[in-house]
């Protein structure tokens, strides 16, 4: 009897082309948009556009501008004067500006970075790029600046100062104090958004499927279905099973895209990923069935579920990363399935662990599923009385 209902619902989706697109194509697309935005920010590949004014026009300043140009590619433009540069920043043609106005070797602060108040991050990135360009391509200039800075402290002799100034061009740049190594295991923000987008769409997909309960009631089908010898439980159980299976398939498609495009290690953590996907899909199915069973009409269920799911998604971290949220909101997030799903996927796929947090997440999600299913049974049983 359960499998009969699974077949009915599966054929319903299979014969609904628009539904297939919404369930399997839209979630990966939204994920790619989120992942592209946030992973770029996290990995330092933000492509800023920079305007530069070289008021000195000396050999050092020209070398610095040339070096920056190499780093930024076609995203560096020259402005004739500071006013023109300010205008370019205000109008959004460039994200930040650089004005070279003092002797690069002697002036305490020979350059100024101009920043729009709405794009402060662009300024930070430009300062880092200027420092990197100077360190890599003008090492003797940086050495002269260091000598000038240390001279009062070390009391260098005039000969020592002269010798430092005669350092040959092409001096090797100073080795970095700390080396950088990117750990394996995928970008955490990409994994975060794979989980976040997955649970967001799972909820809406489950609700669309669960609303067949309301359609059946309206079409008089529920009266006929009520004559089934198994009663209400298998009818709802079939739906629960189908919605869970559909949710797992949907998550599989989305994470497959994440694995192919962003190298998220799904295959190496397949068992733990599968358990998380099943728990997340079952939780969504349970909640959606309870909502559909509680509502009398589609007109009632549609706004109620949209309101509930968007609020849950916002609090649970499906829209903006949880670490950007205030402490109180982060705590509130633990009441939503979204936070648990995101946490479980991150721990499983980024850290490669199945620890107490993951087990706790699976338990909580299974509880959401069970409570939702029982609530749906209760509402449907009441409706029959």
């Amino acid at each position, binding site marked *: *009897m359960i499998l*009969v209902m699974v*077949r*009915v619902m599966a*054929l*319903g989706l299979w*014969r*609904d082309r628009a539904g297939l697109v919404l369930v399997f194509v839209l979630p990966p697309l939204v994920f790619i948009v989120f992942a592209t935005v946030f992973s770029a920010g996290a990995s330092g590949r933000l492509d800023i556009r920079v305007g530069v004014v070289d008021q000195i026009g000396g050999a050092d300043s020209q070398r610095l501008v040339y070096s920056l140009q190499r780093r930024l590619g076609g995203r560096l433009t020259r402005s004739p004067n500071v006013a023109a540069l300010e205008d370019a920043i205000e109008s959004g043609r460039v994200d930040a500006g650089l004005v070279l106005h003092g002797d690069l070797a002697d002036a305490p602060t020979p350059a100024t970075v101009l920043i729009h108040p709405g794009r402060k991050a662009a300024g930070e990135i430009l300062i880092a790029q200027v420092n990197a360009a100077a360190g890599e391509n003008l090492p003797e200039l940086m050495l002269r600046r260091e000598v000038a800075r240390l001279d009062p402290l070390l009391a260098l002799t005039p000969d020592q100062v002269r010798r430092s100034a005669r350092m040959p061009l092409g001096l090797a740049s100073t080795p970095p104090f700390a080396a950088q190594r990117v750990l394996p295991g995928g970008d955490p923000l990409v994994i975060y958004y794979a989980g976040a987008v997955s649970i967001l769409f799972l909820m809406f997909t489950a609700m669309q499927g669960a609303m067949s309960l309301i359609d059946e009631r*309206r*079409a*008089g*089908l529920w*009266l*006929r*279905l*009520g*004559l*089934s*010898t*198994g*009663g209400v439980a298998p009818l709802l159980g079939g739906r629960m099973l189908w919605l869970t299976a559909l949710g797992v398939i949907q998550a599989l498609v989305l994470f497959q895209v994440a694995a192919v495009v962003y190298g998220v290690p799904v295959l190496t953590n397949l068992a733990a990923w599968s358990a998380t996907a099943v728990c997340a899909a079952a939780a969504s199915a349970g909640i959606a069935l309870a909502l559909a069973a509680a509502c009398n009409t589609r007109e009632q269920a549609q706004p109620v579920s949209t309101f509930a799911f968007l609020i849950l998604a916002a609090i649970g971290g499906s829209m903006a990363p949880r670490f950007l949220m205030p402490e109180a909101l982060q705590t509130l997030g633990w009441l939503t399935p979204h936070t648990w799903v995101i946490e479980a996927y991150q721990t499983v796929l980024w850290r490669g662990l199945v620890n107490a947090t993951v087990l706790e997440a699976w338990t909580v999600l299974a509880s959401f599923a069970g409570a939702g299913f029982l609530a749906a049974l209760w509402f449907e049983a009441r409706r*029959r*009385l």
Partner: protein
Amino acid sequence: MAVEQTKAVLQLAKATRRYGNRAALDQVDLELKESEVYALIGRNGAGKSTLAKAAIGALTLDEGSVRVLGADPSRDRYVRREIGVAPHEIALYLHLTVAENLDVFAALAGVSRARRVSAVARAMDETVCAGRAAERLENLSSGWRRRANLAAAIVHRPRLLVLDEPTEGLDTETWLILRRLIARLRADRTAILLISHNAEDVAVLADRLGVMEAGRLMVEGRPTELMARAFGGRTELVVRLSDAAPSVEPILTARGLAASDQGLCWSGMVVDALAQAREIEMALRSVDVELRELAVHPPGLDALIDWATGSVGA
């Protein structure tokens, strides 16, 4: 001589169901025997659908009892496979084909996988919808959908069949199919509860008739007997005039007719309507009043409901 005892398939005893202060079913006693067709009529909200739901165990009663073949359908699930229902709506999955729908409902009614193919084929034959077996419901006309709706109700060979307005919107061919189907089911000892507003359904199909009002079963009996009790030999006489004239009033009121439509229409239940019609025609001619229409109608279900509800209330 041995008398064959017909078995009661459906029994309602003092069945009562309230929604707040309103009684949707009020102390209803009803018995439906095998091979019997019982038609239930009444105005909207009279309690017909509530009674049908109670009969199939879709709602529980506040008082009284419902038994289908001796079991309570709201509790004893096994007896539900003996019940078939064709709701007024097309209670089928529109995205499935006719055959797929029947297969689903046969499975839900407990028909084994081995017997399902033949059960589906038989139901489609009996409702003459085998020609559309592989077509999805969403692509079928309303007549074909009604046939499939009926087929789904009988696919598991129920002993009690509940039909809610089965002939509404039916073409003549489908009506005849339904008539043949009911005859065959009756021969197969199926008991049928028919909810209908159609006088022809009741006259042709029903063995017994019950009139409901405010949750109560006001009267019941054979249709012809009820008609005789309600109207004797009387039929409805309708007179329509081209102009309202004061001179017609004594002529028509003397014959028991009442005016409506600002004196342009007169009607009433009369004995020997044809003779009365002839007299009225002559009388109106004598006062020089032009007659637009003079009609004699057999009393309909609405008149019967009026009689049943009015007579009991009196």
